[in-house]
């Protein structure tokens, strides 16, 4: 049961994951000796932060410059940002990223919750199943799996062989611009393991007596799910939603590997971050790439804020 203890504490703090960690302020009132220990534990984070903060502000500066990597950056004000409005490829990459996020995040959360509920039924060898379902999310964004995916969905791959049994024509899953993004969305949905593990932990926190009482009152299965599971699980759904949204907006590897760094076919898998990378490192437009990075930050912040704002209408915090 060692995996369980590793997972539980994470599930205990779902509602406010990020900012609680940032504000060490709560500890200030305690004794100095305890403070020191706290800071000592934070030390790795402080050291790591140095490596983040310097590039962070450097890229903020570069976003307002014309920087080609070889000559010193030249200040050009907002030109990078105004140029973004005139860049049809950037618009295309935003579209790809939005479609990917808004289709794959709900689907993968639904899959995660569904599997978590099945596993929560007290199946024997639960840790084994849990590990099996979790595995893809460890591997999903890795180069090896995307390559494997290329073969599974290749013209002569397993998927087309299965379709062939039903008489369906072969589909060029990875090289047809109409299907390439769909293929990556399926890959994303398949990697539902990490929200699933968190859902599973959350489901176990829901007292069984609620279900028993509801069953006695004659509530249907669907009714129990809607009126007990969903409300009591909502903080965890909220946490998973935020995590998935942020990660999904930053998707890079899948588009990079699937088509050898290109985002093809016909830019149909050109994720925003991939285009950013191409601009910075292939086209020598590092100033523009930095401006793109900051724009992405604003987009992610806006959607995160929106989700937080919506939380008061559907997230249930009182037990």
């Amino acid at each position, binding site marked *: 049961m060692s995996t369980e203890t590793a997972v539980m504490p994470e599930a205990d703090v779902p509602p406010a994951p990020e900012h609680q960690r940032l504000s060490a302020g709560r500890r200030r009132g305690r004794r100095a000796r305890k403070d020191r220990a706290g800071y000592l534990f934070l030390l790795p984070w402080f050291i790591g932060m140095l490596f983040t903060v310097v590039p962070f502000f450097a890229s903020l500066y570069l976003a307002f410059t014309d920087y080609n990597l070889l000559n010193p950056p030249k200040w050009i004000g907002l030109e990078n940002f105004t140029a973004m409005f005139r860049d049809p490829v950037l618009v295309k990459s935003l579209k790809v990223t939005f479609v990917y996020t808004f289709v794959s995040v709900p689907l993968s959360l639904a899959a995660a919750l569904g599997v978590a509920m099945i596993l929560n039924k007290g199946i024997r060898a639960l840790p084994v199943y849990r590990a099996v379902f979790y595995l893809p999310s460890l591997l999903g964004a890795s180069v090896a799996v995307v390559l494997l995916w290329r073969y599974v969905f290749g013209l002569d791959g397993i998927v087309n062989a299965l379709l062939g049994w039903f008489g369906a024509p072969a589909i060029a899953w*990875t090289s047809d611009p109409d299907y390439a993004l769909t293929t990556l969305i399926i890959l994303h949905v398949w990697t539902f393991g990490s929200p699933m593990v968190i859902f599973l932990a959350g489901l176990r926190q829901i007292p069984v007596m609620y279900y028993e009482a509801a069953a006695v009152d004659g509530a249907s299965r669907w009714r129990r799910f809607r009126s007990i599971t969903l409300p009591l699980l909502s903080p965890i759904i909220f946490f998973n939603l935020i995590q998935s949204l942020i990660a999904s907006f930053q998707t890079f590897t899948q588009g990079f590997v699937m088509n050898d760094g290109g985002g093809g076919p016909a830019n149909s898998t050109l994720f925003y971050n991939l285009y950013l990378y191409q601009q910075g490192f292939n086209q020598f437009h590092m100033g523009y790439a930095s401006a793109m990075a900051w724009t992405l930050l604003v987009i992610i912040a806006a959607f995160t804020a929106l989700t937080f704002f919506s939380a008061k209408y559907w997230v249930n915090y009182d037990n």
Partner: protein
Amino acid sequence: MKAGGLGLAAAPALAACGRGFGGGGDDDSGDGVTLNMVWWGDATRAEKTQAALDLFKERHEGVEIEVEYQDSGPYQDKLATRFAAGDPPDLMAMRMDSLREYADRDALLDLNEYAGDLDLSGLSDNAATIAEVGDRVYGVPAGLNTVGFVIRTDFAEQYGVPIPDGDTWGWDDLAAFAKAITDASGGEVYGTGFEAQTLANILVFTRQRGEDFFTEDDRLGVTAATVQAWFELVNGMRDEGGFPPAGFFENIGGSADQSYVAQGKIASQIIPTNNFLGYNEACGGTLVLLRMPGETQGARRGQSIDCPHLWSVASASKHPEEALQLLDFLLNDAEASLATGTTRGVPANADVAEEIKPSLEPDDQAATDFLIALQGEDLPRSLLYPPGGSAVFDFLDALAVEVEFGRVSPADAAAQFIEQAEGAIAG
């Protein structure tokens, strides 16, 4: 977590603060000079290159060479990052299409200023000035190659389709050959297949129509009519069945063993000539090497003498003399070329090329003869890409796929391409 994307964009700035990424040239103690040399390629190329470098080190005591090599994709990014970090390699492989990005920003050494250290007299005029910008030269060809058409003779025999005369065939002959193979094989094997978006391919077609893809004054020379004709040429063959259907070409990796021609799915394709040996081995020795179609029917010749990559020296190199010494050795020393073989094409120095030819494998000899014969003819010269030119490939790539799947007509794609490409070059 949110800063992930930002860290990526800003990494070079961090590196510019003084933390290099390895790289050499820091060790100046005594006579010891350490050159940092970077290039892309596979393990075979690495082995052959190392053999040549070992010879060099034997003759030049006190010079150490720190080699880094990798795949061609990430190579570009790494090189850009090294320059941004102020820690460029001394001697590097440089792509023809990115030379101007570096040269125009004074990042590379003008080799004309070091004419005493680097002897270019053994090279043809075309080869010696292939990386000339104005009156400066920023690189020398690591070898010479061009594109050619390979045909599997076993399929031609099996299906009873005669192989056209490779010196005089036209694009119509290719289409007829391809259709005949596909028909005779009952669709088992497609007659031909190549990527419409590969610049090297459309470049030949463009020249045959009397245009240059990029002009000498850094503009887009190719016309919409030519791009449209190119797309229509491929579409025509696809409609007839000689060319595989849309979506057929997937990303299967670049090696000869994995190629469709080696898998027996297509009977002919375009290759860079320096890969002939590898492809022929992968096809069991059944390949024959032809010139590109349309060379005798067009307004002028389309083939040109190119190079797989250039060797360039960083202008910030602390040891330019030693770097040039090494470059001179790789370029002009027959023993060096004996060691490297034709992994980067036929040696640019014509005497060296002749000298090592007898010791090459028969396939390499064939490719060498092919190139030497072309070199003796009056061909248009290979022009450098203007800065911003590498973005042009991305546009062509995306539009070629749109055309392939019938989402955009060849005429519309051509018009869009011209507009986008002109924007990228001007910007």
